[in-house]
């Protein structure tokens, strides 16, 4: 193995060293710092696949003295199991058992920041190579160091379960790491071939399982700082409300109140406990200006195809002219999806401690670096002086890709001069949030006499979900429309000779953001429901109808999609006779190269749609954590059922009408169907699993209801009457 000696500049060492020494855990492992530096530099020099941003995700390892390895994850654990996947990849190349890897979130002050939010089901896929490469390099460095100490050739050093050995000599990684002063750094090591995997692809327990079962897992609301005060925000249930007048006389007298803080439209009661702050906040009398008068009908009207700015994102053949020339033969349908909220179980919250030139933020966010930027702006302080720590997230689903309450906590902490903990009430979460927007879809097709699609168009009307957030107003203008997030999944995957897809962007007077699966959810509902209708109309089997349009043998996605559908036919018993009173439906989606399909059986019980059985086939490429993937599929099935049958957020007089769980029902234990999941490895790299299985659920239920009742319910949530 060729090696090169790296000399690190003293300045860089001090910079990194100083930052690293900030944490007490780290301080006692100074001996490992060259390796830590190495991994940092290694990551910096690598060409990583990052979504949209060219900035690279970063991470690093530390070998602790008890021979465990600390993996500082740049990706946020919000339940999707990313810690486990990354730990498995690292353990595989490090030749240690999974329980030897301890995972924590990297903090922004570590100097290694992931500028790409955790989302888009991209964490594992984007880090598949980098994590393994760094881990393999570390392993080789440890071997080289041991070889030198023992005066043997590196090829004679074996690694097994965190231990190095050679002809009778033995040492743990921790021992070698602490006793080595100068490291030989190998060039890119060879990665294990798939056939040699001992951990990747195997059933394991998730690394955060035990703390979550014991109740010791720490979330934002469980975190504390010494001398911390609590703040409760006083908010209007109306959107865009501003303060006209405040009477806080009664509140000030309330027990435990320290201060009533007002800065602009930020109004907060600061007290010694949450209970004291909350009790006092109820006594604050505020008159609000409520300029936002939006009604539900306004939203429906605004978000309608033909309104707003059109961006054509897919065009093959001459679909539009064919439809125009054959008006009487065109099958045209419209679909709508409603506004929705994330309703993650943990409300948004943050802890801030603002000192003269130092800010500590603790908040559960999908984008800690964005939190840092927002706080820097809110209290006018340099980004470098802000350190954002991320506890575990009690659910994300896109809600925690928005800034949360870090800026509010920082403003209040600055004014009060003490650490502040602040969190939303559930009502705030419902009424002062960011929302999945309503969408409108027009689909048109002309079929030939034998029932194949000759031309098809899809027009989606949607507000921008995230592009403005990512690339700003100018970026949105340049793109013409948000087809990256809201329009994700608007394109048609089938091999139809003539097709055209447009996304129509309209702004709405409602705060909009991403929601699990982003554009895939509304678009797959519309497109795949329409395909189900076309198959129904042509009198064809809904899966055969799709297979007949997945014909391009040179397209790997098409080939993988065929395999997924063929597997679904077999595993779901698609072609076997069905019981009386049961309807069957199916849908498929390609979500960034993860192909997910579901076959669903429904029945009608007491006038309501009941999902009886869901068979999922997912081809997400290389399997990392099979049990984790199955958990994600189950989660997508339940969230899919919830969004398909129950969830709808509405606005009245500029106020979100649903303020409590009782007004926004979610799927419960009573909705659990029989769930089967089958995984295909149609590629040798991993693709996403957290969102792809969600999109097919709604259109598959639509198809099953159509199959059972003949009714096409073209608006979510699906209602029989």
């Amino acid at each position: 193995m060729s090696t090169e000696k790296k000399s690190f500049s003293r300045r860089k060492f001090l910079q990194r060293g100083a930052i690293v020494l900030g944490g007490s855990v780290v301080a006692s492992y100074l001996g490992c710092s060259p390796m830590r530096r190495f991994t940092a530099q290694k990551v910096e020099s690598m060409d990583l696949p990052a979504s949209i941003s060219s900035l690279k995700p970063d991470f690093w390892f530390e070998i602790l003295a008890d021979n465990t390895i600390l993996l500082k994850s740049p990706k946020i654990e919000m339940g999707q199991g990313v810690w486990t996947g990354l730990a498995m990849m690292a353990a595989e190349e490090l030749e240690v058992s999974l329980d030897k890897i301890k995972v924590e979130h990297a903090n922004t002050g570590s100097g290694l920041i992931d500028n790409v939010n955790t989302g888009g089901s991209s964490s594992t896929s984007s880090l598949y190579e980098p994590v393994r490469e760094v881990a393999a390099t570390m392993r080789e460095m440890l071997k080289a160091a041991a070889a030198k100490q023992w005066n043997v050739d590196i090829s004679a050093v074996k690694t097994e379960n965190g231990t190095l050995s050679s002809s009778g000599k033995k040492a743990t990684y921790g021992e070698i790491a602490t006793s080595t002063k100068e490291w030989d750094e190998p060039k890119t090591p060879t990665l294990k071939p798939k056939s040699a995997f001992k951990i990747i692809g195997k059933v394991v327990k998730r690394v955060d399982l035990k703390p979550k079962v014991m109740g010791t897992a720490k979330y934002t609301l469980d975190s504390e700082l010494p001398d911390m005060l609590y703040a409760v925000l006083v908010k209007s249930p109306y959107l865009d409300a501003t303060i006209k007048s405040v009477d806080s006389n009664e509140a000030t007298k309330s027990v435990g109140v320290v201060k009533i803080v007002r800065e602009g439209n930020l109004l907060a009661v600061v007290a010694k406990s949450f209970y004291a702050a909350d009790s006092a906040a109820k006594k604050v009398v505020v008159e609000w200006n409520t300029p936002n008068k939006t009604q539900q009908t306004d939203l429906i009207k605004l978000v309608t195809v033909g309104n707003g700015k059109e961006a054509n994102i897919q065009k093959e053949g001459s679909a539009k002219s064919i439809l125009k020339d054959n008006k009487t033969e065109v099958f045209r349908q419209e679909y709508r999806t409603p506004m929705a909220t994330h309703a993650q179980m943990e409300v948004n919250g943050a802890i801030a401690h603002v000192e003269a030139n130092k800010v500590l933020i603790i908040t559960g966010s999908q984008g800690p670096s964005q939190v840092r930027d927002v706080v820097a702006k809110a209290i006018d302080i340099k980004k470098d002086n802000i350190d954002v720590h991320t506890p575990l997230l009690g659910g994300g689903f896109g809600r925690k890709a928005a800034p949360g309450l870090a800026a509010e906590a920082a403003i209040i902490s600055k004014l009060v001069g003490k650490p502040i903990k602040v969190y939303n009430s559930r009502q705030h979460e419902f009424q002062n949030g960011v929302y999945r927007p309503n969408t409108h879809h027009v689909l048109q097709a002309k079929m030939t006499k034998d029932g194949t699609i000759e031309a098809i168009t899809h027009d989606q009307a949607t507000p921008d979900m995230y592009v403005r957030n990512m690339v700003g107003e100018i970026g949105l203008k340049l793109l013409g429309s948000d087809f990256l997030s809201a329009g994700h999944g608007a394109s048609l995957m089938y091999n139809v000779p003539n097709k055209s897809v447009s996304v129509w962007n309209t702004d709405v007077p409602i705060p909009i953001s991403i929601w699990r699966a982003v554009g895939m959810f509304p678009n797959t509902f519309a497109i795949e429901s329409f395909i189900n209708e076309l198959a129904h109309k042509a009198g064809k089997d809904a899966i055969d109808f799709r297979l007949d349009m997945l014909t391009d043998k040179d397209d790997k996605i098409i080939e993988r999609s065929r395999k997924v559908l063929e597997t679904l036919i077999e595993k779901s018993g698609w072609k076997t006779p069905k019981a009386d009173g049961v309807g069957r439906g199916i849908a498929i989606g390609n979500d960034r190269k993860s192909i997910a399909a579901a076959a669903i059986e429904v029945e009608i019980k007491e006038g309501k749609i009941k999902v009886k059985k869901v068979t999922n086939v997912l081809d997400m490429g290389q399997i990392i954590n099979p049990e984790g993937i199955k958990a994600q599929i189950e989660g997508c099935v339940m969230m899919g059922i919830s969004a398909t049958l129950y969830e709808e957020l509405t606005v009245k007089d500029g106020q979100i009408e649903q303020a409590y769980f009782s007004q926004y029902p979610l799927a419960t234990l009573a909705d659990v169907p029989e769930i089967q999941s089958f995984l295909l490895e149609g590629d040798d790299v991993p693709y996403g699993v957290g969102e792809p299985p969600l999109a097919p659920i709604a259109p598959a239920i639509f198809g099953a209801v159509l199959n059972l009742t003949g009714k096409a319910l073209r608006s979510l949530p699906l209602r029989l009457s």
Partner: protein
Amino acid sequence: MKIDFKLNGKPTSIDVDPAMPLLWVVRDELKLTATKFGCGMAMCGACTLHIDGEAVRSCSVPVETIAGKNIITLEGLSDSEANLHPIQQAWMEEQVPQCGYCQSGFMMAAAKLIKENPNPTDDDIINGITNICRCGTHPRIIKAIKRAAEINNQNH
């Protein structure tokens, strides 16, 4: 007002506003954070704990009502990690949690359910537990409760 009660077997005394919900007493005053805040209106069940053996949503229980009573939170459900409550054993076996936030409440509700009903059917579970989970761990929760009942019955 001074209130005495037992918390996870330990005699505990607290002097707070009698109207303060038990949830905040447990979390903020006594620093046991397994019991979660989800809605504050007894709708989601994230704050479920046991008062004298009953599964209760602690966000809506004024602390004055628990004087002399026995409170068990998830921290006190099993006596040690080596000797987990059947519910926790089953939760580990079935790998129930995703984000984990609602799980304490579900486990406390489930522990009460299998104590009262040693062989719960799907319907017993569905009707007996109305907590909310957003990650979609519901299928595993049902499996784990049945598994816990099995473990429980083997132990006795």
